[in-house]
């Protein structure tokens, strides 16, 4: 077969596209000849970390990935699906869009949302919730304020117009993210268990359609070059590799896709995200054990003179590859036309396992599909690991601090409430439509969001994202474990049983042995926590090369957790509900300051070990609290997390402006008041039910301490603090707006 190459290909060409000399030799070996330029481009994107997981898959395989509730397991399809009963499932997944967001925050974040939504609806699931997990530098520089504004408006722009409620998220600020912010987007959808679509091509002779927007020159090499390098002075020149999103086109694509799947005309379907046509054709073919013949002349283009290379690598948004059952083309086309979505046949399924691509009537690529994908010939690397040297410096004992008196304690509480990581994120989440769909029972500001499932009366799901990366930095194994435990705890605090996670693993350069050690250790911790909590991993995404000027970001394995609620009427929030109720701490109170927000904000140090965690204790605590919520014993619950016990109490006061009157019957050390010991939940319980709670805690072996009572208008800690709740709330609410608006004026 005569192949046409637009450029002569050498090993250097391969290196310019991000491939190594060994990988180039491997490609030549697979093909038995020199690849064409288009083929080389396809390999460069398909063998990038983003598509092949070549540096991460050996670690990922150690995670627990099976469970009785799994309808679709990790790696099988675009997202995992959990059985919620009565013939319905919930699909959910989290993905990063860090590098595009660093270069072009609005479009980078917007297309991150668009991409994860497509992963959900390509499976036949209607998106019912979106979440996001963001990391920025300390917000004292114009660049950080610019990034926050761009990312937040990009997320809002896409989700609001598309019509999915953005219901929860988390935002942390730390200097390590100044040049390389993290933007992780999660989506959740509901699907009929018998209506789950598959990204598999089958049936020789079945036509292949491209559905959605025309293909342009945006996003070329987004996955292989932009996402596979660190940030430096050249990064600005990568702006054209960022895709441009159109949420209106995606909304129409959503409706057309769901209607097509529902009509039973679809054999297989996959969205086009990273690596566009290259990825969707090769993955669908490899999974079905078939090949595809693709005529690029038929692909609707934004610019007529695009080359085969550009068309194959374009990451233009809002596109799907659909294999339609032969004979049902017209039915399919009618549905697409109803929604005004372009729908064009570009090829057909073949039996030889080859991706055969033509442009202007000439062959430009002829590649075995299996050779491109994970599980096929894509390379798999064992990377060197080495315990980082910095741990010798950070891992020192941290004094739980002197006994604090009124002035220092009040000042510390105020400083923590004003710290952007802890402060109210209202300025951000009020820019997101959090209610469209009319399923949002609990939204941003709570421990987890709760989404009612209309299709299954009474049923709801809880969703949350979590990762304290400072803990992971100080102790990757335990930090990974805490990220899972805390996400589960957040679900429990609203009354949901944690059932599964998705993860987004944001790390530095995997070729740095110290980074890779962090990666392996964090995964080991996550795996141990997931096994004990019985929350398998349903999928996710790996983002390496989050570095700038040779400084990696903190290792940030973001956890997206799904919890199940059988009776939505039992859901509780984290605000005190009424006066004259008992305030009770359940769990293991300790004096620890390592890795705490207090250490960062008050002492300006990132030091010590991550908080201690016994995952078995954690499970006992969670079961105890979940039972208490489900049986109506507990009326409000809040996880004791960043900022420790006093911040937790203040936040519980803020919801309805109900004060608290508590006695802390120990020396008032910083480590006790502001430490971030794990496995603690503060609950509100009535006098009538406190006996039930005590009995349950005793039986579960969970320590229980009555701290005091709700009521009044102040947060009053006897012999230590008494401040008006409104006063504290004002500090908490004003912190972020002050930062964001001061920039406008300057």
């Amino acid at each position: 077969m005569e192949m046409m190459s637009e450029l002569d290909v050498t090993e250097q060409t391969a290196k310019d596209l991000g491939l190594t000399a060994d990988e180039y030799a491997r490609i030549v070996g697979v093909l038995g000849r020199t690849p064409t330029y288009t083929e080389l481009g396809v390999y460069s994107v398909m063998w990038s970390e983003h598509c092949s997981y070549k540096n991460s898959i050996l670690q990922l395989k150690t995670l627990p990935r099976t469970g009785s509730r799994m309808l679709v397991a990790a790696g099988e399809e675009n997202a995992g699906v959990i059985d919620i009963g009565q013939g319905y499932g919930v699909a959910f997944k989290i993905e990063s869009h860090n590098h595009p967001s660093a270069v072009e925050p609005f479009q980078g974040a917007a297309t991150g949302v668009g991409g994860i939504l497509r992963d959900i609806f390509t499976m036949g699931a209607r998106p019912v919730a979106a979440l996001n997990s963001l990391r920025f530098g300390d917000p004292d520089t114009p660049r950080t304020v610019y990034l926050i504004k761009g990312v937040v408006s990009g997320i809002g722009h896409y989700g609001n117009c598309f019509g999915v409620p953005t219901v929860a998220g988390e935002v942390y600020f730390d200097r390590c993210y100044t040049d390389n912010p993290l933007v992780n987007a999660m989506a959740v959808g509901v699907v009929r268990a018998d209506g789950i679509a598959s990204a598999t091509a089958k049936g020789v002779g079945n036509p292949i359609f491209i559905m959605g927007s025309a293909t342009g020159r945006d996003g070329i090499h987004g996955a292989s070059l932009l996402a596979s390098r660190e940030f430096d002075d050249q990064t600005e020149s990568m702006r054209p590799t960022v895709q441009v999103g159109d949420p209106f086109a995606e909304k129409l694509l959503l409706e057309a896709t769901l209607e097509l799947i529902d009509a039973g005309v679809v054999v297989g379907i996959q969205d086009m995200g990273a690596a566009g046509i290259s990825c969707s054709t090769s993955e669908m073919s490899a999974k079905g054990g078939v090949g595809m013949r693709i005529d690029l002349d038929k692909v609707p283009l934004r610019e007529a003179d695009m080359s085969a290379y550009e068309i194959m690598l374009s990451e233009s948004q809002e596109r799907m590859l659909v294999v339609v059952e032969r004979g049902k083309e017209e039915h399919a086309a009618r549905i697409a036309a109803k929604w005004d979505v372009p729908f064009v046949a570009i090829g057909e399924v073949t039996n030889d396992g080859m991706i055969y691509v033509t442009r202007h009537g000439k062959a430009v690529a002829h590649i075995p599909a299996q050779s491109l994908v994970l599980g096929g010939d894509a390379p798999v690397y064992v990377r060197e690991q080495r315990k980082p040297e910095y741990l010798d410096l950070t891992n020192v004992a941290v004094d739980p601090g002197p006994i604090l008196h009124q002035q220092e304690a009040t000042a510390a509480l105020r400083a923590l409430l004003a710290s952007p990581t802890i402060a109210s994120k209202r300025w951000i989440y009020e820019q997101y439509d959090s209610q469209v769909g009319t399923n949002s029972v609990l939204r941003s500001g709570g421990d987890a969001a709760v989404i009612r499932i209309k299709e299954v009366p009474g049923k709801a799901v809880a969703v949350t994202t979590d990762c304290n990366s400072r803990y992971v930095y100080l102790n990757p194994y335990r930090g990974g474990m805490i990220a899972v435990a805390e996400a589960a705890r957040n679900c429990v605090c609203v009354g949901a049983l944690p059932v599964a996670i998705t993860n987004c693993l944001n790390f530095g350069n995997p070729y740095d042995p110290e980074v890779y050690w962090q990666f392996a250790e964090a995964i080991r911790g996550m795996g141990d926590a997931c096994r004990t909590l019985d929350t398998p991993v349903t999928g996710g995404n790996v983002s390496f090369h989050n570095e700038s000027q040779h400084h990696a970001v903190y290792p940030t394995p973001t956890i997206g957790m799904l919890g199940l609620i059988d009776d939505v009427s039992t859901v509780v929030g984290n605000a005190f509900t009424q006066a004259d109720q008992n305030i009770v701490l359940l769990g293991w109170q300790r004096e620890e300051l390592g890795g705490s927000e207090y250490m960062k904000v008050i002492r300006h140090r990132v030091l010590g070990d991550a908080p201690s965690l016994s995952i078995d204790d954690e499970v006992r605590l969670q079961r105890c609290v979940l039972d208490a919520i489900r049986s109506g014993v507990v009326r409000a619950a809040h996880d004791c997390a960043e900022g420790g016990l006093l911040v937790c109490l203040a936040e519980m006061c803020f919801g309805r402006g109900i004060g608290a009157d508590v006695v802390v019957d120990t020396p008032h050390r910083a480590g006790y008041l502001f430490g971030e010991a794990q496995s603690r939940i503060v609950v509100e319980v009535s006098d009538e039910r406190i006996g039930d709670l005590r009995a349950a805690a005793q039986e579960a072996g969970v320590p229980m301490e009555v701290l005091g009572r709700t009521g009044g208008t102040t947060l009053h800690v006897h012999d230590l603090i008494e401040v008006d709740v409104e006063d504290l709330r004002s500090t908490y609410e004003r912190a972020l707006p002050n930062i964001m608006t001061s920039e406008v004026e300057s």
Partner: protein
Amino acid sequence: MKAAVVTFPGSNCDADARHACALAGIDVAAAWHKDGALPADTDLVILPGGFSYGDYLRTGAIARFSPIMADVVRFANNGGLVLGICNGFQILCESGLLPGALVRNSGLSFVCKDVYLRTESTSTPFTSTLEKGALLRIPIAHGEGRFVADANTIDELEAQGRVAFRYCNADGSVNVDANPNGSANNIAGIVNAGGNVLGMMPHPERYAEALLGCADGMNVFASLVQHYAAAAPTTLVSSQ
């Protein structure tokens, strides 16, 4: 009572409007923007929220040219009940069924939050179960919800009691602090001269059940049901 909820390309609150109608006991028929006519026996048309045509050009500016809008205008001009919520309000203004326009929020950002509304007019079919001055807590979610009109139009709306809802504080007071988007006179919703067409930026369908935090929005749907029950069948407008 039978409502037709119109779906435009980019509508995303159409299912929510249908859900709220069902909760209120209103029968619902879906209506498609490409249809030439409303479903038979339509008693109420709802233009739902969303981003019809992606808000391209101007909010509501393209939707008003959808084939079905000619029949919606005819239906309204014959006295038929039309409720436009958020993007639906924008479309009503663009199509000339309501005066004024909705422009970029004064804060320049999209805002999604609960607001309080003070019921200003109780003589409309949409507010008939409410007391004058009744407070409703209902969410807004828009980037372009700032109601503007020339001074004469505003005066006319006020003089004729056509301001249905006004943004207010939790205590019912109306001032600039309670105005989430810079709307003239804190106007959140208005009716046409006949009182049969209501446009409002807040989303009553989002707070139609206590499970979601508040059921104040149900008042609008309950008013419509009561109005329909009170009206003699012969006086009802048919879409035919």
